[in-house]
């Protein structure tokens, strides 16, 4: 009589799966996007510092950052705390359908933890007021309002935007006495960042070699594997989450990673631009701050990715397309240029001929790949910087350094 729980989840039934698989095979998507098109990202800032609503198509996430003073952990007495809370229930009706300890909530939580906490994007040492006594505890509440696929990207964008938007009150500690200043007394202080990570999600199907970016719920549920890559604005990899059953070519993952790095950079630029617009509005006067009322209807308070990044996006789009085509050949053009510049700088120390073939497979069989590529990559890696990364990301190591070295001066990230 009543609705089956599967009915709430598009893409779980067999006909739907077949439909999506077939569509992907023909390079078609249900909403008319191309495989490398993302949905529009819309940011709305609340009246309070650290309140941001993000919508990615129909996926909507509200993030709120709060802070209070607390005691630090004994293992890290001079660092503040960053706490991430994901809330999937409520208006999104996600807990309704499934058991409480849901796979989805666990993956989302761990992704956010790794993207923001393990990558140490917020400078926690700056949040220390008095070592071993008082530190700021930053708490991020991520409320999922609506789930229409790609919660990962929506939540990471929302979390990053909220953390960047957030300001904490100034505080002084003298004679064992804490004094917190109000906004009128002293201006609030924004958080300090070491880097800005954002995730990009890809879906891979057995029926087609072409991964699709920014999946909807239908596509996500029907996918054979979902790959989530977190890149920061320096195009360094922060998190790689690969699961599922589709056998995936290394080249496909590399292609995803390269596009994800570009996309992540564009998103961070967009967030920066949106923040500066919000600040301008705040400076103009309090009457202009509309807060989240701006969510209702079509208002100027919604800051859309397409609108803000209109020109830049088009410029970006071109190289992305180019890359996608070029990727089918063993050596990608932009990489070669970067490699050249790097070679000049590192000629003396390494005699290893730097070519992208060391990490980009030239043959179809990727089975043989790991051993030679790892060996050469570790050699090349030692020449530059001694950076040990998590095991899952070995294949990406050389490429990451290519990017970070040629980009803005790379910050050392643990």
């Amino acid at each position, binding site marked *: 009589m*009543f*609705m089956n729980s599967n009915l*709430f989840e598009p893409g779980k039934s067999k006909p739907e799966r077949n439909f999506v698989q077939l569509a992907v095979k023909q390079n078609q998507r249900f909403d008319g996007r191309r495989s490398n098109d993302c949905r529009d990202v819309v940011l709305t800032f*609340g*009246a*309070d*510092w650290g*309140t941001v*609503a993000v919508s990615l198509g*129909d996926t*909507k996430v*509200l993030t*709120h950052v*709060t802070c209070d003073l607390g005691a630090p952990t004994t293992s890290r007495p001079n660092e503040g705390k960053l706490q991430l*809370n994901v*809330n999937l*229930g*409520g*208006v*999104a*009706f*996600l807990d*309704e359908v499934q058991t409480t300890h849901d796979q989805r909530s666990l993956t989302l939580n761990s992704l956010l933890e790794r993207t923001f906490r393990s990558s140490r994007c917020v400078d926690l040492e700056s949040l220390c007021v008095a070592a071993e006594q008082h530190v700021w505890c930053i*708490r991020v*509440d991520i*409320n999922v*309002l*609506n*789930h*229409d696929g790609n919660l990962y990207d929506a939540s990471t964008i929302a979390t990053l935007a909220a953390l960047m938007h957030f300001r904490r009150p100034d505080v002084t500690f003298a004679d064992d006495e804490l004094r917190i200043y109000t*906004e009128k007394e002293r201006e609030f202080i924004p958080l300090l960042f070491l880097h800005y990570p954002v995730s990009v999600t890809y879906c891979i199907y057995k029926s087609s070699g072409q991964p699709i970016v920014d999946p909807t719920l239908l596509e996500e549920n029907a996918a054979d594997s979902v790959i989530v890559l977190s890149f920061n604005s320096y195009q360094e990899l922060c998190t790689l989450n690969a699961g599922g059953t589709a056998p995936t070519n290394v080249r496909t993952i590399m292609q995803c990673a390269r596009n994800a790095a570009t996309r992540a950079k564009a998103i961070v630029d967009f967030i920066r631009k949106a923040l500066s617009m919000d600040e301008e509005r705040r400076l103009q006067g*309090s*009457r202009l*701050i*509309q*807060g*989240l*009322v701006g*969510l*209702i*209807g079509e208002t100027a308070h919604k800051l859309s990715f397409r609108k803000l990044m209109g020109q830049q996006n088009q410029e970006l789009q071109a190289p992305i397309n180019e890359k996608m085509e070029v990727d089918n050949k063993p050596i990608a053009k932009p990489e070669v240029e970067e490699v050249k510049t790097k070679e000049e700088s590192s000629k003396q120390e390494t005699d290893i001929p730097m070519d992208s073939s060391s990490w980009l497979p030239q043959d179809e069989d990727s089975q043989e790949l790991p051993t030679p590529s790892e060996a050469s990559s570790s050699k090349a890696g030692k020449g530059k910087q001694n950076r040990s990364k998590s095991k899952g990301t070995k294949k990406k190591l050389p490429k990451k350094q290519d990017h970070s070295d040629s980009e803005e001066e790379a910050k050392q990230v643990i």
Partner: protein
Amino acid sequence: MNLPAKVDVEKDKLRQMHCEFNPLSRCDGSVMYSQGATVVIAAVLGPIEVKTQNLSIDGSYLECNYRPKAGLPQVKERIREAAVRDVLELALLAEAHPRSKMSVQIQELEDRGSIDACAVNSACLAMLIGGLPLKSSFAAVHCIINEQGDYILDPDQSETLHQRASFTFAFDSVEGNLLLVQTKGAFKIAQFNDIECLCRAASADIFQFYRSQIAKYHGRSEAIAEKKKDESSSMET
């Protein structure tokens, strides 16, 4: 924080109301509702399967959850949730769907005063747009007595900092019965009666807002809705 205060609105008027229907895709009906700078989002799902422990053979079970913007619901939020549930239980036509559950979820987006009233109003709009059976629609109005002894209808958060007493009334649309009274602070019975009248008058504005918004959503112009209303009122008299 500089707040957009209730400067341009008189003390005996409601702040401006806005709403957007069905912003969410996974529920039967949802509404984003704002009064002034206070914004809430409400979603309904029903009738759906019910757990055996809550199953009732002579009416549907009502589940009502209120979620704050940050953190888990505390006592304050639980009280608000209970208030909304009480009003909904009175207005819901539970007999229509026995052995089932109606789920109402309310998420606070921004609290700038009168959040109790906003939660109730958004729940009503969500029920209406979701097509869940109601005996009547309902509206809640918040009013305070400030330090000077003035009545302020639908106050902004900045105005509630110094208040003597605060009231929340909910009325149904058919007979204008009181569905909910919440009071806090010290006041005289005459003041209570005054404020009840004030809130009752203001609730008419909210019902008018419901009517025009739903007419607009279903593709009718406001003029037709007005006309219908005139007709129905002339028929009553």
